[in-house]
């Protein structure tokens, strides 16, 4: 199965500027965590970057087809995964 993964902001820099990366995983469906692990074998920097952000309180959100999900989520052929850092909110109280 093939899954598209959308990357924005600094995560895009970690995949050499590609806004969308295609990941191939064996079988008809998989858990999101497996898709990501496959992605990270191609882009190990991306994994380390996401971990680094999490440690700074800037944890990412995962979406499948526009719905927020966790790492257990089922992903099927043709799905669109997104990894989103915190929105650029600007300070509420500056």
């Amino acid at each position: 199965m093939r899954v598209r993964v959308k990357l924005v902001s600094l995560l895009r820099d970690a995949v050499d500027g590609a806004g969308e990366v295609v990941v191939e995983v064996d079988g008809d469906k998989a858990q999101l965590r497996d898709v990501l692990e496959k992605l990270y074998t191609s882009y190990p920097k991306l994994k380390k970057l996401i971990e680094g952000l999490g440690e700074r309180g800037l944890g990412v959100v995962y979406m499948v087809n526009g719905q927020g999900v966790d790492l257990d989520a089922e992903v099927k052929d043709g799905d669109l995964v997104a990894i989103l850092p915190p929105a650029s909110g600007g300070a509420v109280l500056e």
Partner: protein
Amino acid sequence: MSKPIIRVGLSKEPVSLDDVAARLARETNGLGAGSLVVFMGFVKGVVDGYKVNTLSYEAYEDVALKKMEEIAREEAAKWEKTYAIWIIHRIGVLKPGDPTIYVFVVAEPRHKAFELASRILDRVKHEVPIYKLEAREDGEYWILGDHTRVRRGEELQEAEKR
């Protein structure tokens, strides 16, 4: 009461405040409305003492639009005398002084219009997947979350060392 006029958008071009204000005043005065609050954000020319060259916005578009509409509908539902909510966010490469976001609220009484516009703006800034890259005279910064500026490339170099 009739349904509030709700509109959300992502726009590469600036929006005419005059056109929107005239339209909203025309379409809501007959319902008893008389108060329009507009928020227009614009690119700061100086941040942390450094000159800003450009501010680039990218959105995860489908989700951003869905989320903006959700915010508009939820906030409209909280107050009966809400006549219109428009939220337009700019995307693309903007220069100092260029408008970045527009929030229009028609509601009565006027204090509610202020309150709604302020809350909608907070929610858009925090809940909508829109990302900024600030290019300043001292380098490029990704802006993440409420306060954090990450110098472009730096986080990646650190990741490689891990």
